[in-house]
């Protein structure tokens, strides 16, 4: 290496070190408006949209309604439920993320009147709106499974990580015992639409891996049970998961819906095509049916002919705008679209609603569309994951085509989940990504 080469190398490495200093991005001039915008829900979608709107609009009255004071980073729950992260990894203050110059009402919404354009709360407050964004999330219907309740989680071999940080931590208590003692483990999913359909698979793979690491692979009888006829909604991914389950020795029980459990006897009851099947378990992971909050269904905002037992908001798939009330949009879990109940979907949905909302305020049509993008870093063991990304049409839509293969178990995909995902999520909450 001569001196010039050495200096070039130094310049390159120096350049790399200094590059992040060069920021970019001249913000567009805010639009003056007196519009009254109401956002229901201060979760991932509501918070991200609020942070983007305050930058785009000048003079708008923005109200966000949510009684919760703790923000939940839900993609982290699978890591808490396997002891990889502590419970406080997923919690933060709602107030920390909300912009300063909006109104936050800590109340629960009771009804929406799409004709009168009002939202009323359980405390009797009535708020007028010009534009309404519904992002209240969904409700876990534990009551639909006979014999089950949230306080059972953690005891008698019962896990249910979707419930929240406490339930996820207790899930690990029960799951850890299972990985040490062995036995039969049943991993279920509901018949309804659900948040991140990859989560029950992840939990199965991780518990299997933890048992292997504990040297108990021979003592495990792992069963993945699902009401559907395939392991994943996207056929090409389902086929890959089938192969991985075969490799890990995970048995599958398809077209079987968990209807009841007997915690004392550690027995689960499944409704199958031929009637009923009972299975004794040492560990069961329960994901209950999931539905829209009652006020959505009671306010006549749901689809009348689709998901009638679940009540998701009747919106256009591409614009997320209500089909009967053009002043209403839906974001995140509550939106009545075939896919998209993940934080990654929210990241793609929020700019679409922002675009159409601002266009409408300006009296023109928006141009952005949502293609159903949903992403799932599908963990297949500690240290490896498949970065599965797809759209409405079940196409794979890899973010890094040719570099990160979607159906390969890769360390880089795990790194993304472990290191970059929460950071990206937080940046999204701030409206920056």
């Amino acid at each position, binding site marked *: 290496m001569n*001196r010039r080469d*050495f*200096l070039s*190398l*130094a310049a390159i*490495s*120096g350049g790399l*070190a*200094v590059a*992040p*200093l*060069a*920021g*970019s*991005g001249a913000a567009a001039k805010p639009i003056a408006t007196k519009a009254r915008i109401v956002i229901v829900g201060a979760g991932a979608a509501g918070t991200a949209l609020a942070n983007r709107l305050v930058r785009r609009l000048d003079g708008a009255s923005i109200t966000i309604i949510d009684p919760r004071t703790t923000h939940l980073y839900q993609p982290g729950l699978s890591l808490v439920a396997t002891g*990889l992260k502590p419970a406080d990894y997923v919690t933060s203050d709602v107030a920390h993320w909300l912009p300063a110059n909006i109104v936050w009402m800590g109340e629960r919404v009771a009804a929406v009147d799409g004709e009168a354009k009002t939202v009323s709360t359980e405390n009797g407050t009535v708020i007028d709106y010009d534009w309404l964004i519904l992002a209240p999330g969904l409700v876990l219907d534990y009551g639909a499974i006979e014999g089950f309740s949230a306080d059972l989680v953690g005891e008698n071999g019962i896990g249910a990580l979707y419930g929240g940080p406490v339930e996820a931590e207790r899930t690990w208590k029960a799951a850890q015992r299972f990985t040490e003692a062995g036995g039969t483990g049943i991993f279920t999913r509901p018949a309804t639409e659900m948040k991140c359909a990859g989560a029950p698979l992840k939990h199965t793979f991780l518990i299997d891996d933890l048992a292997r690491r504990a040297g108990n692979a021979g003592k495990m009888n792992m069963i993945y049970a699902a009401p559907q006829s395939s392991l994943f909604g996207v056929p090409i991914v389902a086929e890959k998961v089938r192969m991985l389950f075969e490799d890990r020795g995970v048995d599958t029980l398809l077209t079987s819906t968990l209807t009841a459990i007997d915690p004392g006897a550690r027995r689960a009851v499944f409704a199958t095509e031929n009637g009923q099947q009972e299975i004794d378990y040492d560990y069961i992971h329960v994901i209950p049916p999931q539905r829209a909050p009652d006020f959505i269904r009671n306010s006549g905002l749901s689809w009348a002919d689709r998901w009638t037992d679940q009540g998701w908001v009747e919106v256009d798939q591409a614009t997320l705008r209500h089909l009967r009330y053009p002043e209403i949009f839906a974001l995140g879990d509550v939106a009545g679209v075939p896919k998209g109940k993940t934080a990654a979907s929210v990241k793609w949905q929020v*700019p679409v609603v922002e675009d159409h909302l601002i266009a409408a305020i300006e009296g023109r049509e928006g141009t952005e569309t949502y293609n159903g993008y949903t992403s799932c870093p599908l963990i297949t*063991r*500690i*240290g*490896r994951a498949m970065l599965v990304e797809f759209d409405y049409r079940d196409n794979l839509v890899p973010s890094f085509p040719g*570099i*990160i*293969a979607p159906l*390969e*178990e*890769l*360390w*880089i995909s*795990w*790194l993304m989940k*472990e*290191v*970059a995902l*929460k*950071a*990206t999520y*937080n*940046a999204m909450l*701030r409206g*920056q*990504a």
Partner: protein
Amino acid sequence: MKELALQSLIAVFEEIFGRGLFWTLVALAAAVTLTYFYVLIRDRSVSWKKFLLAQLSMPFGAVASVWFVLTMTHSRLSDIGGPVDLIVFLFVAVIGAVGTAILVYTLEALIGTERTRQRRSQGTRAETRHRHPVSSN
């Protein structure tokens, strides 16, 4: 979205390390790099004696950075599952090696070791060249 890619990236890094720590790290990296250029310009040449120690430190930097990444991410070497993983792994090692080399070289040039001081006392020819740059060419 695309034109904001760099801004998003910065936002993500700020979240990973925390805003204060991230910019402190950037400032440190920039400071070490600038100091490195300073000693190169000051000395008007690469000292191969200093560079020898810097080179010898590279494997330690590589191993340390790989160990750090694996530990922080609950990973093991056997998790490397495809070509891109190998590239990431080598990238981490190379960054660690080059970073350490630059740091060691710079520290040695600034603070000086036994060898460096010896070099400086013998370095009259370099100083002469510095005073008469044209004649040295």
